[in-house]
């Protein structure tokens, strides 16, 4: 392990000891943060997976049925039928915080719809049922959107924090420890050298005087 390129002085020793203290504390905090994030992530991702499997099946079926129902009318006709939707869902976008990581929270307020956005004459019954189904599926889709985004953000945050923890654990802390040890030994050696020099000088003076 390479040590830092610093002058072996008492001043440096004090600074490095301070840095090591902060690094150790930071390492512990980040490690705790990673553990907690992993705990939350693993439960969220399981939720996400099961919700997605469920919603995907419903959406696939819905879109498939729509393709069939649409066959009775042209795309232009359908497009004009839906041109003025009586907006049935109100979405609220907020941001939550998980371990100081901003994650989206989307809530949907489903308004009870009395009428479809078009006259029954222009459409076919299957289409009417599918519009109702789409309205019912929207809250689930929005929940899935926020859950999936939360998982994505947490996944990248866990990855980033892990890198930091590893950098502290395997690079910074060993480097600082080794440099501190080196400086302490160097200072001790200088101390011993000057002491021996003094003893030597003292004995030389004594020899000359006697």
């Amino acid at each position, binding site marked *: 392990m390479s040590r830092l390129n610093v002058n072996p002085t008492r001043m440096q020793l004090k600074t490095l000891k301070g840095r090591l203290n902060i690094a150790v504390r930071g390492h512990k905090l980040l490690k705790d943060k990673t553990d907690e994030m*992993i705990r939350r992530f693993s439960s969220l991702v399981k939720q996400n997976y099961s919700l997605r499997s469920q919603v995907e099946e419903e959406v696939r079926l819905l879109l498939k049925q729509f393709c069939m129902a649409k066959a009775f009318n042209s795309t232009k006709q359908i497009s004009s039928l839906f041109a003025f939707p009586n907006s049935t869902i109100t979405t609220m976008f907020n941001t939550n915080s998980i371990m100081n990581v901003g994650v989206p929270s989307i809530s949907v307020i489903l308004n009870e719809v009395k009428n479809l956005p078009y006259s029954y004459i222009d459409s076919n019954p299957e289409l009417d049922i599918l519009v109702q189904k789409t309205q019912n599926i929207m809250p689930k889709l929005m929940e899935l959107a926020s859950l999936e985004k939360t998982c994505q953000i947490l996944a990248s945050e866990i990855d980033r924090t892990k890198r930091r923890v590893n950098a502290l654990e395997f690079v910074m802390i060993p480097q600082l420890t080794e440099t501190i040890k080196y400086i302490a030994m160097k200072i001790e050696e200088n101390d011993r050298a000057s002491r021996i020099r003094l003893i030597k000088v003292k004995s030389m003076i004594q020899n000359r005087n006697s």
Partner: protein
Amino acid sequence: MTDKIAVIGSNDSVLIFKAVGCDVFGVSNEQNTRVALNKAITEYKVIMITDDFAPFVEDIIEDTKLSSYPAVLVIPSGTKVSSYALDKISADVEKSLGVNILKNKEN
């Protein structure tokens, strides 16, 4: 950014979302998918894209991953069965935890 929802996909399948107030972008190839998604990213908070067009714009979706909004959600297309989105979740799990804890669920 508006509080509306954008849906990108082939006109045949996603037009139904127009009935619930979503803005639908009908696309047919890679180029207009890119144009539609780039436009939607700046204007909408939630964007849904069908899984037959999502692989064309994977790089743009990756870029939006770290911010809270816009949230890009991949939905099935209705024309073919694909495990694109579920595979993405598994890849995320493997990347962050080092092991795929969803493997038992998949089997």
